[in-house]
């Protein structure tokens, strides 16, 4: 099997058109700002009319060097323990060297930033998966990376910080003293745990403060979801049978969407997957899919980006600290939000303890220690498998390993 030649753009197959991004009325145009901070090719991909976007050969080669296609495995051990004849398959994105699916979009984003003559890429990270992927992609492609990491994670995920620095990145806890927004947040609350929204604002502000910098986002925006569809495009080639249920966890929505959109797209075009249910699983710490409003909101806390229509808890929402820090985000990708709103994708929220229990069961039966984020999908797979009839088929996305999250296993039952 080869690395796919195309990413899949679900926007052109949706039941409704995605409402365009909009500017707030009372300030400068955020849409115009995008040109200053984002690589131009990414902006084009945000609005492309193409259903299949060609993956440049240099990116395909890097995908391959880094371990794509990733394995699509059957969870025999977990099936045996559950014992009710449901077949469970999982895509293992933790097989990539940065330990998660995030490298799928980090590589193209850094690649396109360099095409715009960037000397440095700037980003934010929650648990550190995205920051680690950007650090590696920047190292592979030869530019500097600067990462703003939510303070709670920075203090707890020390190994990820070390890995990022090993790849050559500068890593700062957010809120930081480097930006106006960070200083204000610290002043208002000295023990501020940080939030992804705030870290995004700091990363954008830092990008604007220097020459030769480009900002690259980890989730939510359309081109991030687009790049992640390399996962689902591979699954279409690897799957031995059609699933009854497809599951992924959701922070901003990129891994769930990347995994499932090629299958959902086929369904929307009446080309298969008619019987398949699609289930997005989030953390109770940031339950935008199950409790959020479908409205225009800022993707970042400081309101520097244009507003997009999405399921959101509000851009100033500060979620409680959890071990699945990558899921602590206030909104979901517009395309995913719309699919949830339209009832094409179901949504469910789980609490931390029940998820970590599922993670342990998976580790003991499959040998892979999952990231706390990915374990949300495992928990749903176990729950669903227990109530589905014999012979049913489940696919889930194991979006990352938890070898750098072992503190989470130590800090929960």
């Amino acid at each position, binding site marked *: 099997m080869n690395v796919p030649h195309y990413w899949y753009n679900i926007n052109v197959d949706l039941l409704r058109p995605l409402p365009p991004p*909009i500017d707030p009325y009372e300030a400068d145009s955020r849409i115009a700002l995008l040109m200053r901070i984002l690589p131009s090719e990414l*902006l084009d991909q945000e609005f492309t009319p193409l259903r299949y976007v060609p993956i440049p050969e240099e990116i395909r080669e890097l995908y391959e060097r880094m371990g794509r296609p990733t394995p699509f495995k059957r969870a025999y051990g977990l099936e045996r323990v559950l014992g009710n004849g449901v077949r469970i398959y999982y895509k293992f994105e933790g097989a990539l060297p940065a330990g998660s699916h995030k490298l799928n979009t980090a590589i193209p984003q850094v690649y396109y930033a360099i095409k715009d003559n960037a000397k440095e890429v700037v980003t934010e990270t929650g648990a550190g998966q995205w920051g680690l992927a950007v650090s590696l992609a920047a190292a592979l492609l030869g530019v500097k990376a600067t990462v703003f990491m939510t303070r709670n994670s920075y203090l707890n995920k020390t190994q990820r910080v070390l890995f990022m620095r090993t790849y050559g990145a500068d890593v700062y806890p957010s809120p930081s003293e480097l930006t106006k927004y960070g200083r204000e947040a610290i002043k208002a609350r000295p023990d501020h745990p940080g939030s992804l929204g705030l870290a995004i604002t700091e990363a954008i502000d830092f990008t604007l403060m220097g020459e030769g910098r480009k900002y690259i986002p980890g989730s939510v925006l359309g081109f991030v979801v687009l790049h992640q569809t390399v996962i689902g495009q591979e699954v279409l080639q690897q799957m031995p049978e059609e699933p009854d249920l497809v599951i992924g966890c959701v922070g901003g929505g990129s891994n769930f969407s990347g995994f499932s959109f090629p299958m959902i797209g086929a369904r929307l075009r009446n080309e298969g997957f008619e019987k398949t249910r699609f289930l997005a699983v989030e953390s109770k710490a940031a339950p935008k899919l199950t409790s959020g409003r479908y409205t225009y909101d800022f993707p970042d806390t400081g309101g520097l980006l244009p507003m997009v229509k999405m399921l959101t808890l509000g851009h100033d929402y500060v979620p409680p600290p959890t071990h699945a820090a990558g899921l602590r985000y206030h909104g979901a990708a517009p395309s995913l939000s719309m699919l949830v709103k339209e009832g094409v994708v179901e949504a469910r929220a789980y609490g931390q303890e029940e998820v970590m229990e599922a993670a342990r069961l998976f580790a003991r039966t499959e040998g892979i220690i999952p990231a706390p984020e990915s374990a949300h999908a495992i928990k749903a797979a176990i729950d669903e498998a227990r109530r589905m009839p014999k012979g049913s088929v489940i696919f889930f996305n194991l979006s990352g390993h938890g070898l750098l999250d072992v503190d989470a296993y130590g800090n929960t039952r």
Partner: protein
Amino acid sequence: MEIRKPGIGAYVTATYPNKNDFLNAIRCLSEVSDFLEVGIPTNNPKYDGPVIRKTHFASELKGLDAVNVAKYGKVPTILMGYVEDYVNNLELVAKVASEAGASSVLFPDLLFEHLDKLEEYVMAMRNHSLRPTFFISSNTPHRLVNVLVRYEPLFIYLGLYAATGIKLPLYIERNIKEVRKLVDNITLIAGFAINTPEMVKLVIGAGADAVVVGTALVDKLANPMACAEFMLSLRGGLP
């Protein structure tokens, strides 16, 4: 009235900056444009860029009172409004448009925010002898575009960028070519951030039948001569 192909249209917001200047502007623009697009002033011009937004906020009159100050029809005239303001009054908008001599009412938010009103909108247009017109973006779902084509609209309007007047680094030539394939032989109009003859040439060359100019006109509206000269210079981009 059909839209001339290839053609150039001018966008103005009704009664901006005041009623008299607006009437002068449409008189003058009718001489140098193939069609007019007249904005119905609203407090919520959410898809417009900063320049056009200001015209909505600063117009002398608001809503249908503003478009009602003129008689249109010398060249095809399309009213442009946000359906959000008229979601329960589609028949009224169609009636006003028809009585004022317009050919259609274009609602850019119809498909994005009120897709459930699509049939009702088409009926309202037809009930008043108007033709439907539709606004799409480059990534509007292909099947929906196919549905729109079946309504035989006066035109389909492709917004080239995310908001009026704000140019982004998009491959608009490719985007127009892709959309052209979907709209079949329906008249395809493109707009947003068109301000030079070179852009007119590129957009028409890629497959659009006509273009609309708006933001670039705003600061010339008070001077009919400058307005006409500018439009004539853009016409230089037509084949």
